[in-house]
């Protein structure tokens, strides 16, 4: 059965978005952990090592990035149970 022209094939779009948002929420800490462990690969020591000033700036930059992402996601997240309602509304 072909969809009428101009209408998307997938109906429960809002619910689909919410589920992917939750996937992103799950991935966020993994992403953060990797970024924060990254400095361990940098060269160490006083001769050619990185300075602590740079490390400090890097770590706080990651922090701000993660906080911003979490803020955006929590704003868009709807309470549980809302997905099903959204899908019902779409139908």
């Amino acid at each position: 059965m072909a969809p009428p022209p101009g209408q998307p094939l997938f109906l429960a779009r809002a619910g689909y978005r919410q589920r992917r948002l939750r996937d992103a929420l799950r991935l966020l800490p993994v992403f953060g952990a990797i970024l924060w462990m990254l400095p361990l690969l940098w060269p160490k020591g006083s001769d050619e090592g990185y300075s602590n000033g740079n490390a400090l700036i890097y770590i706080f930059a990651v922090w701000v990035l993660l906080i911003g992402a979490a803020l955006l996601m929590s704003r868009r997240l709807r309470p549980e149970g809302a997905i099903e309602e959204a899908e019902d509304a779409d139908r």
Partner: protein
Amino acid sequence: MLTFNLLVAVALSYVAFLFIVAFVAERRAAQGDDAWLSAPVIYTLSLSIYCTAWTFYGAVGYAARSGLEYLTIYLGPSLVMLGWWWVLRKLVRIGRTHRITSIADLISSRFGKSTALGVIVTLLCIVGVAPYIALQLQSITLSFAVFAGEGGAVWEASDLNSVALWSAAGLALFTVLFGTRNLDANERHHGVVMAIAVEAVVKLAALLAVGIFVVWGIGGGVASTLDRIETSDIAHWEQSGGRWMGLTFLSAAAFLCLPRMFHVLVVENANERHLATASWAFPTYVMLMSLFVVPIAVVGLDILPAGSNPDLFVLSVPLSQGREGLATLSFLGGFSSATSMVIVATIALATMVSNHIVVPIWLRSRSQGAMMSGDVRAIVLMARRVSIGAVLALGYVYYRVSGGGGALAAIGLISFAGVAQILPVMLGAIFWRGATRIGAAAGLLTGFAIWGWSLFLPSFGEDAVIPMSVMSQGPWGIGWLRPQALFGIDGIDPLLHATFWSILLNAAMFVLCSLISFPNPLERLQGAQFVNVFEHSQGARAWAPNAAQAEDLLIMVQRIIGPGQAQSIFQKAAAAQGKEGYLPDVTPEFVQSIERLLSGSVGAATAHAMVSQVTEGASVSVEDLIAVADEAAQILEYSSKLEAKSAEQERTARALRDANAKLTALSIQKDAFLSQISHELRTPMTSIRAFSEILQDGGLPAEAQRKYAGIIQEEATRLTRLLDDLLDLTVLENGQVVLHPQEGMLHDLLDRAVSAAGLRDGGIRIVRRKADEGVSLLTDLDRLGQVFINLISNAQKYCDAKTPELRIVVHRVAGGTVVDFVDNGTGIPPAQQQVIFEKFSRLGDHARAGGAGLGLAICREIMERLGGRVSYLPGQGGAAFRVTLPKPEALAAE
């Protein structure tokens, strides 16, 4: 110059301010105005108790010694909060569904409500956290000493000790006052949460103020401060990878497992949605807390004389620049960090000690069990207060024994490693159905033992607990058991070494013993409910139906959460089943909800033990075990809508069944009444007719005439009274009655009712508390008095005790003022309680009272007209009637 006394005054007025904040918050919450108390921002701020004095002062010292490693202490919790969808969301849902009161309660409840596991976790937490409390006391005393030193005084050890002792005593007082005010079914403390939220703001503001002063006041802006870092002792990135990852893991684990963090994260959580806000707001908070740590450390190393204690740079840098106001603010920040941590940690530990150690022992020591024991509420509260004192005393003793020296500085991480032992069991508890009680106990004990042997005991210093020879050669010369080189692997950082082996073997034992042991039915049931908490939050059934009597349950619940709350809960449950009165049917759902309610006050294991005493040890039914199986759970899920419908039908059916039973009983009683009333009418009629015939015949002496006329009159009066009653009832029922509202006092009305009830000498004794009766009324006093007289004379007629006694108790409940009439007789059997307020009903069929069974029906009609209520109050020992006085507005509206 800032004098030391002034500083003490500042600290004391700050404490007084916190008392006021907590008090106002409690008041607002008690008035039901708690919307702003449960805002997400308050929740986020309350999480800040993670930042203790150890992080407030110690982070700078840490940075001065080992560069950026201090950041790991904040990175771990940030990751946990950012990943709230994984663990915290589930923990909070479980905590709310099962009314979890502490981390020990979570573990105990999940593994079949095991008392033993509750005890293990509680002990582990006490051992792990008491030194941490000592650390806070130390930081308070040291910060005082800095100011005293600035004033020229050199402090002796005894001065430090007395500051520590007074701080501990003050904290105990605050915690007892606001942490044990009531035994709430949700175990939430608005006053405490509000106070720590305020403290969170103070400590953040203090650290930011010092940081801004250091960067722009001393350092000369951001760029030159960065230059200063480049030229300092900690200029280079030399971080050990093992410690960086290990400490991040450890702080993340401790964030979840520390009793105080579990308390604010899960127990005090008012709304799951708050987690979404906290997921970004809390990382922001700790980021700001750690933002200026390195600049302060670098500037402190730069401008202060060599050998100054870097742990106190936050205080000594502003002081060295003559900024006393700033130093005082920073002092208050450190003070806030220490006090808020101690208060919440003490509440959390005291709850665990009282729920998992004191109350179970107390219950076991009473052979009669929970049913017959006195007011459990008072015992639990007292246990909690004593536990608070004991926990703080333990912290103080540890502070004294350890000498308050450098040994304490390392204790923060040691404490983290100790409580992190709960992590494997906690994660297993919420994600793995196969985890068993035996596995959990084995894992916890293994981890606890390794942590104690390889980290905690050696932390007391060389030769203090573990002799040097054991440290270097192992116990009895067994080399592979050396505390800091287990299995012969030498040269690892001691903290990493202990954390790695303890968590690894802990998790291994937990998994292994879970795999080979077999859970009991309750464990499986709880396991399914915890792991699949999102699928069926309504919970499974745990009880065989009707094994318990509603009245027994009511008696027990009254003793724990108080009569007022218990009665209103039972009334609501009855109403939900479509029944009137205070006694719902004892369905499995009802028993389970009662058990959850109690577990909010005394913990799951104890609540389970108490309820099963009443339900006579009814166990898990076959249906429950089927429900545990996955397939059945899925079917349940699909048919949940169907279930809701059938529940509705069940309610209707129950209401119909009740109505039918009532009608049948009434119809039988009506028949009986008809024959009774014809008898009652005929007897006086017969004598009236007989005597009037005799009088008509004449020829009697005057004396006999008078006597017969008297009999006729008496019988006629009796008839009139009966007809009056019937008429009265009809008028009331048809709503034709006219009320005459008057003003008056309750005690006058009761006085009049007692004297009008015509008590016989040697009859029933009336017990009243006149002090409570000073209630002014605006209602139809004559009608209300009629109700009182009726209830008093009923008690006189029906109370079958040897020395009958009627207690008239006036008190306030949620719905207004009530007057309880409680006698000490055998009471009214449940079957009769349903119908006593119907007309024509009479207790049994004995006619000794001589009434027509209309009294209580009239009472009920009157109270309804007046806008109040009269109802039977079960579970009071004898027969008990509750008159709910009409509210003044109700009458004014008419």
